[in-house]
């Protein structure tokens, strides 16, 4: 069903290159995945991978401060980056005739970021990141839910125990020495995947890639992920965190440990999360929103993480008068009832995922990102095109088995938000 013509190459310095030509629109999406994220942060430096990501936009040896944004916007490009648990990505989409600009910018910061790093830039971006933390976590209702949830789902020595944004104290402690060490350790071609998707000739594009990236020196082997990644498949019980806060409505978040994305059992968990909460025919919507009316909205998803165990998150938002205990019980009931999932539900969930995936790869930027993802995680970008087949192989029996093994009270992290002034 999905076919993406592509070629893969590896430079002598270890950089993996994925080329996915498509001349439908004269634009090109350039995407770099570095295999480093919040999971690699050492103690006392939570949030550092994300802060470092910000520094990557402040110029490099041959690119002045502000130059990255200026040059790309003047060329008619859009750009951004993001940090997550297992990886950091950098991407831009721009007119195809400006491919060299993107390659030059990405290569310059991959190979020669440090000469441009200084204390003033670090202090400025530290302020920006602190504002981001305040805006998203501290100034919004439910803002800190994932901070609480991750602390329940994972033991303190697991790399996913802390959030990507990090703590204010650790952000304050970040130093220039940390930036230099982090760059040398993780920002090297052997720890990266470069994907191009869009309007180019593959042979020509590859020669340009070699030209800009070929003489970036290789780095030393990347150290293992710190902490203890080998944890139990289940939490061992139901762990809870109840918060009375300035929130408009009660909300219950439930987190569940699930197999990592690299495990074939992940797909059953993925389908289970769709059956539970994706769309208005899902179980949580049907039972909690439509029938019982204890919730106004429900969400469920499985996070494709690879370090030890991944997680599934569900949440349900109640009405002003909803009893949070009743809401939590209603969610738990659906988790425990999923053992009897029907083939029609599985079919529906897979069909929805299929349309969503086709839509995602329609856009060059997300196509390139997905290709980088599959290349990084599975060593094979074309693994993306088999995603639907993997989902189609999941049976109702698989989902039922997953539900019985993983959705019970022995594997449940619950964060409840109660409006202030309410019981």
């Amino acid at each position: 069903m999905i076919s993406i013509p592509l070629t893969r190459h590896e430079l002598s310095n270890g950089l993996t290159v994925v080329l996915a030509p498509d001349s439908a629109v004269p634009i090109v999406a350039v995407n770099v995945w570095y295999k480093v994220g919040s999971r690699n942060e050492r103690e006392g430096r939570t949030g550092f991978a994300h802060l470092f990501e910000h520094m990557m936009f402040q110029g490099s040896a041959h690119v002045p401060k502000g130059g990255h944004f200026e040059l790309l916007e003047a060329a008619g490009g859009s750009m951004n980056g993001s940090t997550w648990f297992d990886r950091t990505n950098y991407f831009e989409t721009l007119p195809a005739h400006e491919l060299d600009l993107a390659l030059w910018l990405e290569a310059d910061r991959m190979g020669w970021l440090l000469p441009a790093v200084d204390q003033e830039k670090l202090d400025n971006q530290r302020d920006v990141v602190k504002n981001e933390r305040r805006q998203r976590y501290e100034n919004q209702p439910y803002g800190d839910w994932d901070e609480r949830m991750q602390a329940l789902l994972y033991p303190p020595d697991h790399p996913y125990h802390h959030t990507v944004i990090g703590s204010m104290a650790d952000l304050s402690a970040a130093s220039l020495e940390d930036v230099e060490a982090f760059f040398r350790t993780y920002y090297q071609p052997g720890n990266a995947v470069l994907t191009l998707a869009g309007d180019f000739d593959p042979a020509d594009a590859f020669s340009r890639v070699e030209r800009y990236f070929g003489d970036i020196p290789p780095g030393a082997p990347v150290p293992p992920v710190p902490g203890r990644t080998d944890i139990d498949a289940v939490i061992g019980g139901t762990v809870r965190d109840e918060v009375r806060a300035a929130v408009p409505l009660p909300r219950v978040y439930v987190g569940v440990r699930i197999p990592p994305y690299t495990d074939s059992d992940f797909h059953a968990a993925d389908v289970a999360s769709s059956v539970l909460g994706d769309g208005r025919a899902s179980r949580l919507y049907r039972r909690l929103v439509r029938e019982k009316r204890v919730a106004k909205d429900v969400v469920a998803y499985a996070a494709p993480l690879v370090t030890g165990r991944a997680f599934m998150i569900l949440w349900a938002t109640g009405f002003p008068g909803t009893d949070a205990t009743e809401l939590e019980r209603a969610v738990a009931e659906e988790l425990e009832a999923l053992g009897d999932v029907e083939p029609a539900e599985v079919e529906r969930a897979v069909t929805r995922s299929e349309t969503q995936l086709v839509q995602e790869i329609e856009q060059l930027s997300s196509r390139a990102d997905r290709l980088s993802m599959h290349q990084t995680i599975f060593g094979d970008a074309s693994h993306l095109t088999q995603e639907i087949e993997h989902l189609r192989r999941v049976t109702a029996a698989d989902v039922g088995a997953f539900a019985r093994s993983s959705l019970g009270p022995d594997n449940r992290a619950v964060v409840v938000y109660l409006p202030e002034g309410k019981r």
Partner: protein
Amino acid sequence: MPDRSLRPPAGAVRPFQLPEVRSVRTSEGLEIRSMARGGVPLVSVALVVEAGEVRCAPGEEGIAVLTGDALQGGTLRRTGAELAEALEGYGSGIRVSTGWDASTVGFTCLADRLEAVLALLAEVVREPSFPAPEVERMRSQRLAAIRQRKMDPAGLADDELDSDVFPPTHPFHRPLGGTETSVAALGRDRVAAFAGEAYSRVGAGAVMVGDLSPDQVLDLASRHFGSWPAGAMGGGAVPETPSGGGRAVRIVHRPGAVQSELRLGEPGPPRGHPDEIPLRVANAVLGGAFTSRLNMNLREKHGFTYGVRSAFEARRDGGLFSVGTSVQTEVTAPALAEALAELERFAASGPEPDEVAKARDYLAGVFPLRMETTAQLAARLTELIIYRLPNDHHHRYRDRVRAVDVETARAAVARHVHPERMSVVIVGDADRVAGPVESLGVGPVSIEGR
């Protein structure tokens, strides 16, 4: 080895040809605009119905949004649950988006399911049954959403700005989805009556984007919508907004807030105004791009914020020019001072020639990025219907952008940017920000909620 000290030269520009927009009409006069898009097995379809919030009667604010929400509560042939199962069984779902001017009802699906999903779309728009329990459920959800928005500082700031910029008699004064009072008063009968008036015509127009020829488009539309009367986009329902008096600052108190949401705004021009494109270019310079003056100042230079933007939001009749940002509480006053300083400098002398050139390049260059997917293209086509634009509107956009010179941009700025009479709203901790903001002396300061 490349000379890394130089920005690499660009290659030869490859022209981006937007596919042609074709129009066909059913025998009842419904116009369907379409764009052929091959290579992807997706189709996007939308019906535009003149059922926006500007239609609502006083006291019924939110009726259009609620009716849009309730469309999928059930049809004459099936319950809401059965409808959801049918749509999702095809891997799709109907999305209803109700705004001020219109309601857009549509879907994206894999091409081999088009007939089935199109039939369901037609059923939802033409035969909604509005079961009372479903309408009540949607109303409860809307009321809860209104409560949520009041406690979301960014959403609250946007609504509070609207209420300052537009007088109480103006439709845009209140939140799009209505207030707790107005929505609580809506019930099944009013929703059904509103739909009876607004949705009795199948639509003001429709769009289809996919691997379809105009003949196929006409055939599909005729079979699914052909027997129903077409609607038309009205307009002119919105009064002129009087220009405000002097500048005033209103602080909406949020005790203990660690960030302040800052908004500045004034009435802006509607879609189709001759200054629309020059203002797009000028706005990119002021606050519509990462390298804009506001962002470079407040974020990159001062570290006050994670981001700041300005925008001319043009609706069919009237619009809003606003600047918005979220800043650390401690720097609220200096951030406001910097934002006003940038606005005053911009209003006084407008953009520089090199800034205008870069903004033109940026807007023309990123144009294809909003034209990539079938869903994006369908959205672009619905804009043509809602704002009564010609079929070549998007095709001429880049040329019109490139024709903006610095004089044109400056003249447009002088006509539409008036910092001396903008409304200023701060949603934040008044105990900590009121004093410093008052000391700025930028206008009378009132405080609410303390």
